């Protein structure tokens, strides 16, 4: 592994982790698509600032781009407030407008520049090691590593300092407001962070893939845990591992590193979604089958209990009736009755089902009339 390869991997992990942290809060606030809006419209900020200062490495570009991202959030919210369009349409109007302007500006006035549309979408992770950070002639490593490292540090500091406020404002904004936590301010602070992270990551992975790095690891983690602290750790781990795997897959295929990183994030999400122990799709299906039987047994018990000692009992407690009235298929009804008999919930006497004590207990446990 060459020095450059190592450096690329370090940057990839820094980018992924820096994105995953604010991503968790975006997903929790059901505002995931804001990352899409922000990551696109920051391009306009970069372009406009570039025309002003004519220097692609100027920190003013970062500031302008971050501001554009926050402006996007504000514009979407302002449009939604007019109640002329809903939030989804407002988002779908604002960022394509800004992004289209940016692409047109690049195509018309910045063609000869380093800023071309390919790098907008793909980023240039592979070239990152060429830009060195030098102080007094000493090489301190690639610039991107320092930039992303600083952004990551800021994210960690912000989340660390305002952990309980963020938690409160995310889960119960009204209560947070009542407690004097200014959720609006916190919201915009978070959006600034998202925006700044997107700007930093933009160079490396391009505008669309920032979305993958922000949303997918966070969503994966949220499938696996309900505790915010655990979710944050899991999201960071998923992001870092995806970055590394993504890098090596891209290396093998000689394909886009950023694309490969986000595909890996997606693959992790898919695997979790399908196979996670309790919330996974397969586990859900298995559990549902099991519950269906348990539920059916309880239903049988309650059904028999409700009609116990009523004149209609003679009809209602025949096994055939279950097929007819409870809408079970004959096969399923037979399985339920067999299971109920073997669990000693019911007895079968001259073609009629009677609850046992255990069955009656199950019925009254299933549905209890309060005082």
């Amino acid at each position: 592994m060459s020095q450059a390869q190592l450096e690329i991997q370090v940057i990839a992990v820094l980018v992924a982790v820096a994105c995953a942290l604010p991503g968790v809060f975006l997903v929790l606030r059901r505002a995931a698509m804001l990352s899409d809006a922000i990551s696109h419209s920051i391009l306009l900020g970069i372009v406009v600032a570039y025309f002003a200062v004519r220097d692609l490495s100027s920190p003013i570009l970062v500031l302008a781009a971050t501001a554009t991202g926050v402006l996007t959030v504000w514009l979407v919210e302002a449009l939604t407030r007019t109640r002329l369009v809903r939030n989804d349409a407002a988002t779908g109007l604002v960022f394509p407008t800004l992004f289209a302007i940016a692409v047109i500006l690049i195509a018309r006035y910045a063609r000869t520049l380093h800023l071309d549309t390919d790098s907008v979408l793909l980023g240039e992770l592979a070239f990152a090691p060429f830009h060195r950070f030098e102080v007094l002639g000493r090489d301190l490593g690639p610039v991107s590593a320092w930039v992303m490292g600083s952004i990551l540090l800021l994210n960690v500091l912000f989340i660390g300092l305002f952990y309980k406020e963020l938690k409160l404002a995310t889960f119960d904004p009204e209560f947070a407001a009542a407690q004097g936590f200014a959720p609006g301010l916190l919201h915009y602070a978070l959006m600034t962070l998202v925006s700044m992270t997107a700007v930093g990551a933009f160079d490396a992975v391009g505008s669309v893939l920032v979305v993958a790095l922000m949303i997918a690891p966070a969503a994966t983690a949220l499938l696996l845990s309900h505790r915010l602290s655990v979710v944050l750790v899991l999201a960071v781990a998923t992001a870092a591992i995806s970055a590394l795997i993504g890098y090596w897959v891209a290396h093998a295929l000689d394909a886009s590193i950023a694309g490969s990183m986000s595909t890996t994030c997606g693959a992790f999400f898919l695997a979790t979604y399908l196979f996670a122990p309790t919330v996974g799709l397969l586990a859900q299906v298995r559990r549902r089958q099991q519950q269906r039987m348990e539920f059916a047994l309880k239903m049988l018990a309650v059904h028999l209990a409700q009609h116990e000692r009523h004149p209609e009992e003679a009809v209602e407690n025949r096994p055939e009736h279950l097929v007819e009235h409870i809408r079970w298929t004959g096969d399923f009804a037979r399985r339920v009755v067999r299971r109920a008999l073997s669990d000693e919930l019911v007895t079968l006497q001259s073609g009629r089902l009677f609850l046992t004590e255990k069955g009656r207990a199950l019925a009254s446990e299933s549905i209890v009339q309060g005082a």
Partner: protein
Amino acid sequence: MSGALENVGSIWDLLTSPILRTVALGSGLLGAVSGALGCFALLRRQSLVGDAVSHAALPGIALAFLLTGTKSSFGLVLGAALAGWVAMVFVLAIVRTTRLDENTALGIVLATFFGFGLVLLTFIQRLPNANQAGLDTYLFGQAATMLHEDVLLLGAGGALLLGLVVMFWKEFKLVSFDREFAATVGYPVQRIELLLTLLLVAAIVLGLRTVGVVLMSAMIVAPAAAARQWTHHTGMMVLLGAIFGCAAGVAGAVASSVVPHLPTGPTIVLVATSWAIVSLFVGAKRGILWQWLRLRMLQKRLAEEAILVGLYELAQVHGGERHGHTEGALRALSPNLLRVRRRLRELEQRELVEETSRGAWALTAKGQSQAQQIVEKAQEKR
């Protein structure tokens, strides 16, 4: 002078060229189709679905190319449609079976599918001898290379989609307004919704070549959002959506072929979204501008009434109707009053107040009767 004339001549040549006619026709068609179907997406609050579907189409295009090795529009469109459809299924499945919301599901699907598409695209680009040049035009679209064949596909596809919309008009309208009621009268609601979504996916996919996957979603949202501002009828809205979309397509195509280095896709999108924003401001009755003007008019009327009543009450307290009162006295009476002097001058022009001495104001006879009316009306209400 002659240079300018020459320029005009060459622009004229361009405008009448068969290439531009093809491009403008194609862009107009795609705008019309996406504008019309976008209306249903807007009404069903699915505006961002277009974003996910268009991004997710990229791996479909790349895979279709890898499998068939051709760049024929039809094959790639089919691949794109399949991928878009799979993406929609994922979004629905994630929303239904996890506690993640629709925004998150859309974001994941959009970005990871797109990322996968980029992997395939960069992989294809490095294949030796592949006739792959131009696949990346799907990113931002490229109308200029549109062929006769593409326009035919757009025309046939568009006609089919719009024909289906006309055919199932009542059903689409009912299902997007009140799906439960539709179910109780016996409509197969899920199948109708499925068809509507399929049409949306198809409309998006047809536009990818021209507008590109990154910006195609705007062609679903913008004409529809603009149309919504001008009418209160579903039919008119869909018709306007189609017209606006078509106009944006043609205008964008013409502009980008006349102005050098103006990319077609972003230009079409910018025309469409700009018109949507203009519509939001000046659209019939509901426009932001009209709302604001109505608010201003109301504020002005209230301020005028407050001044008239204020002078009336001051006159009653400090003897004499002809006794002038200063702006300061009026402000003391109602502290929220803005631009008192300007309001006073306007009232003076309407001969409701007069300046008795410098800076001192009193009601005229006409003003007094009007103030009295206002006061009486207010008392009646109470």
